[in-house]
């Protein structure tokens, strides 16, 4: 009978953490060794306490071995010898050994919790700090959603393993080795008999694990397909309904559902084999010891106490063995997660500032692009020989079809990307010679898709300039025409914007991002105008706020609204990464070129 005397930490954790529907994953790192070594490096700062932990674990495991031995002694010497006083002594010794063993176990766990969580904290910090240095190219090529779910899953996988398993791994191995050694010291014959069980157990759990793994892989695939169908049909519900295809959707779902049922029964049945069958092996172990021991006892070769000791050891021996096979999968998953986390930490950061980069104060805001050539991929040039001059304080409207390169130009100014040829100068200085932080402090972006943080409105505005006082934030909001609607909210400036929750309208969000830019007080403003029309009144507000924001600053506007285009000091018409025309609205219309065509195409020959 192999009773597990106490629940493993995994059991306890599983019972509290309401993690649901998390299919067992079987993943493997490409190079588990390397990932392991790197992960272990995070334990290095905790060398001293770690040695302490190992010490305690050794003590705990060794003292754990003393219990069964003393029990055997009590049976033989005290009970067999009918000696009450020695019984008391042995019982007290047992109590002391057990108490100390558990005490050391608790201490080791308390220290290890601190070590492992601090190590993990450092890993997360490293990861985050590195993400701050990554180039815009990285973010453009790694969609936020996917990156995010990967990072959280990976970190979680590492956490699960590190927090639960380090100690049980060490203790399991130590206990097993300790038990084996003690067995051999106490009695060769019984120990040899015990050894027989190990290969059977090993072979057996391997066998089950193999089929279980295969089964779960299949299940995961089927479950993935079922979820894909469900996701697609539920999110496409309205279309399905409109085209009367509900029945065929149900049919598809039914088939996938059946497949999931089949593979779930298969995989789970295999995985459930392990528990009862290792139980049997445990019993088998006990039975072998009892019967062989009984036979040996009859011959007077071992004592009854010895048999009791061995049976006890056998029980303690199988439970770590069982734990080890559980640990295997979770450690593999953690290493696979660690590998991906390290992959991000190893991604090359944004090009660093040149060693002789100058720090710059406030720009006047004169911008010059000289024969700029750029492609996201060096083989595919998107900006060709682009030259443009924007005098300080003037407004330029960039106009052109989608994909012409308007947004790219603005990304080059902020140095989200570096140009391949040519030069970009601000106030006559090449921007590559300016420290990036200083360059960007002089620029402010107001984008179509306004991004607000899950924080208060006040903090969202203050994002523009961290040292701004509350008063300055209010002032910026007033100038951005946002003050009015903010004050109407129940908690005013302290309203918390839970992420993406639509507690603000699109127009209101836009006003907040303008307030942010006003507070930042940049000398150069980059504006990507919203195309989606908000209600007419808010639109007027936005326009008014924008005009205020643009006052006295060099502004580069990716323009969609006619009023902005018309009011710009100069309109730059871009197509295929080149400037095709430049001038003001009237001039360009008279020229009857690309701009005229672009403009007139909106009228489809309708006479006005």
């Amino acid at each position, binding site marked *: 009978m192999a*009773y597990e*005397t106490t*629940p493993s930490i995994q059991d306890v954790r599983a*019972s*509290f953490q309401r993690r*649901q*529907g998390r299919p067992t994953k079987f993943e493997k790192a490409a190079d588990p060794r390397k990932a392991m070594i790197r992960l272990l490096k995070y334990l290095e700062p905790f060398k001293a306490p770690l040695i302490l932990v190992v010490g305690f674990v050794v003590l705990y495991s060794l003292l754990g071995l003393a219990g069964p031995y003393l*029990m055997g002694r009590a049976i033989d010497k*005290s*009970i067999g010898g*009918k000696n*009450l006083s020695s*019984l008391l002594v042995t*019982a007290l010794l047992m*109590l002391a050994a057990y108490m100390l063993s*558990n005490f050391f176990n608790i201490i080791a766990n308390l220290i290890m919790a601190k070590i492992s*969580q*601090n190590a*993990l*904290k450092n890993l997360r910090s490293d990861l985050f700090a590195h*993400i701050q240095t*990554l180039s*815009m190219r990285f973010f453009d090529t790694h969609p936020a959603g996917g990156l*995010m779910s990967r990072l959280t899953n990976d970190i979680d996988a590492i956490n699960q393993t590190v927090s639960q398993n380090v100690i049980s791994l060490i203790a399991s191995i130590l206990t097993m080795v300790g038990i084996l050694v003690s067995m051999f010291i106490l009695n060769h014959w019984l120990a040899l008999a015990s050894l027989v069980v190990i290969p059977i157990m090993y072979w057996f759990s391997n066998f089950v694990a193999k089929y279980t793994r295969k089964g779960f892989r299949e299940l995961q695939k089927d479950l993935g397909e079922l*979820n*894909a169908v469900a996701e*697609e049909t539920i*999110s496409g519900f309205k279309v*399905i*309904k*409109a*085209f*009367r295809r509900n029945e065929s959707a*149900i049919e598809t779902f*039914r088939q996938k559902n*059946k497949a999931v*049922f089949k593979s779930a029964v298969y995989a*789970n049945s295999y995985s459930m084999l392990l*528990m009862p069958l290792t*139980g*049997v092996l445990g019993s088998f172990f006990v039975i072998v010891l*009892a*019967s062989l021991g*009984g036979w040996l006892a009859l011959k007077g070769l071992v004592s009854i106490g010895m*048999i009791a000791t061995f049976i006890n050891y056998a*029980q303690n021996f199988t439970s770590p063995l069982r734990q080890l096979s559980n640990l295997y999968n979770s450690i593999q998953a953690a290493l696979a997660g660690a590998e991906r986390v390290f992959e991000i930490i190893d991604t090359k950061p944004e090009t660093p500032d040149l060693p002789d980069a100058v720090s710059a104060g406030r720009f006047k805001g004169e911008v010059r692009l000289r024969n700029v050539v750029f492609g996201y991929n060096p083989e595919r040039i998107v900006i060709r020989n682009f030259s443009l001059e924007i005098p300080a304080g003037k407004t330029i409207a960039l106009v052109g079809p989608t994909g012409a390169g308007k947004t790219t130009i603005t990304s080059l100014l902020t140095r989200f990307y570096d140009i391949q040829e040519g030069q970009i100068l601000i106030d006559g200085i090449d921007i590559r010679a300016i420290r990036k932080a200083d360059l960007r402090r002089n620029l402010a*972006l107001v984008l179509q898709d306004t*991004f607000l943080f*899950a924080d208060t409105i006040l903090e969202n505005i203050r*994002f523009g300039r961290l040292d701004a006082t509350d008063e300055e934030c209010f002032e910026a909001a007033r100038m951005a025409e946002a003050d009015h609607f903010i004050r109407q909210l129940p908690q005013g400036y302290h309203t918390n914007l839970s*992420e993406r929750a639509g507690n603000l309208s699109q127009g209101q969000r836009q006003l907040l991002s303008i307030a942010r830019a006003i507070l930042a007080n940049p000398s150069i403003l980059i504006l990507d105008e919203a195309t989606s029309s*908000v209600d*007419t009144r808010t639109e007027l507000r936005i326009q008014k706020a924008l005009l205020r924001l643009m006052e006295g600053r060099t502004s580069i506007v990716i323009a969609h*609204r*006619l*009023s902005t285009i018309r009011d710009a000091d100069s309109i730059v018409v871009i197509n295929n990464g080149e400037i095709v025309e430049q001038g003001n609205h*009237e001039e360009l*219309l008279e020229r009857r070129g690309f701009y005229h065509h672009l403009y007139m195409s909106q*009228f489809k020959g*309708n006479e006005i």
Partner: protein
Amino acid sequence: MHEFKKILKYAKPYWKLALFSLIMLIAMVGFDLAVPRLVGHLIDKGIRQKDLQVVISTSVIMLGVSLLSALVAVLNSISSIRVGESIARDLREAVFVKIQHLSYGNIDKFSTAKLMVRLTSDTAAVQRLFQMSLRIGTRAPLSMIGSIVLMFVTSKTLALTMMPILVAGGIVIVYFSVRLEPIFRTVQQRLDRLNTVLQENIAGAHLVKAYVRGPYESSRFEQANKNLADENIKVMQLMSSMSPILTMLINIGIVLVIWLGGGQAIHGTLSLGQIVAFTNYLMATLQPLTMMTQLSNNWANGLASAKRINEVLDAEPEVAEAPDAVSLPEPSRGQIEFEGVSFHYNGATDLAVLEDICTRAEPGKTTAILGATGSGKSSLINLIPRFYDVSSGKVRIDEQDVRRVRSDSLLEHIAVVPQDSVLFTGTVRDNIRYGRPDATDDEIIEAAKAAQAHDFIMRMPKGYDTHIEERGVNLSGGQKQRLAIARALVCKPSILILDDATSSVDVETETLIQNAIAVAARGTTVIMVAQRISTVLNADKIIVLDQGRIAAEGKHRVLLKSSPIYKEIYDSQLGAGVRHGL
């Protein structure tokens, strides 16, 4: 519990298997409890009496018992898994089928994400409840009670001494459960906070860079990171203490058994075999207790999930078919009439989205609906195919109130191109044919040509057989919209509704599409919703919506003179410039 009863009916078809599983479980507990007694017998009658016969026969019996125990354990596992998985499968299907029979309004209220959760983790929680109840749920109390009874049978006095220890064990478990629960919740909150910071940092990377907020973000993260680590340490320290404390209690019990039992053995009132059996039973009592804490969580989760699933299963479709519903007259002319229509999304409690709409769309003509976001354009067109029901007033097609028309007949005559062009996994051809499964290849190509999609389809590596990835990620917005238009055109409907369906297509292509629709769908009543004024210039009639009311209607030239709102929109988009420029 009431909620659970409803779910229980999903278990009904499998009651025999469930019963079988329970019987196997009881047998397993019985076999398990027999083993320590057999060991005791082996020691007392075999070894101490030096009777080899008894040693061998008892060993054989023990082996047999443990094999039987394993066999029934496996049978219990397999049957309980089958029951659980069958229930999960049936529940998933029931939920899915139910969803398919709901209306737009229901789906809006539930939201896609929530429905996915109902279908996945909620059904899994219910399944776990059944499966666990059939396994450890029944096993734990059984083997605990069994062990305690057998402890008393073996030695009454020793068993009584053990009771305080068992009670203490129970208290320890309850204490830790109570203390851990809120800490776990805090950990979850702090983890969410950390993830929010990370998520915002990644999604807003351009802003963080542009405003040079890297260091600020790092300090925000550092704070969240430290808070999480601190709380995690607490949880881990608490959690890892529970197990040694329980072990300690059992160990104290063992020591007591050795000491007190040993004393009795010396006096000859207790045998050695009984002591060994007793310690084994003692070890077996605390383990079920910890299993029970697991089960109580399973029940709590399962019941909460059952409740949420029932919400879906009990939902009444907001738009129900009238018992005496009729078909639309064939052929349908496609005349649409709104008579005093008002509409609220959530009954009368919400603000009206549409108020007192009276207008009509003439057969074969193009009617455009223009207005700002939130003015009620999409709501208005959703009333035509009866995706939603009016709150008051009437919508008529060919003089027939749509609420009195059979929904399949209604939808057969109407094709909708929705705002966000949803495509499905499959080939381009499958997606166009989605509108009418019996459409021929020629009809598909014809529809694609009219939607100006044929050219780009032919440029794709496999043409019409090109596979469309999940939700069309391998297509541009404009391409998806054109496929959605082709899908609607292939239906050859008498009413075609375009809900801002060309917003991502450039103006020139839009014109081509409109012209082609005019040819391909001659005689079809076209309703188009638009934000861009250029889209609606050619319509036979333009309806201007403002905050749920009709502000003006008529042709472009008339509206330009008569409607200030129309002129305002026109000016802001193009008009004023034209006057300046020309």
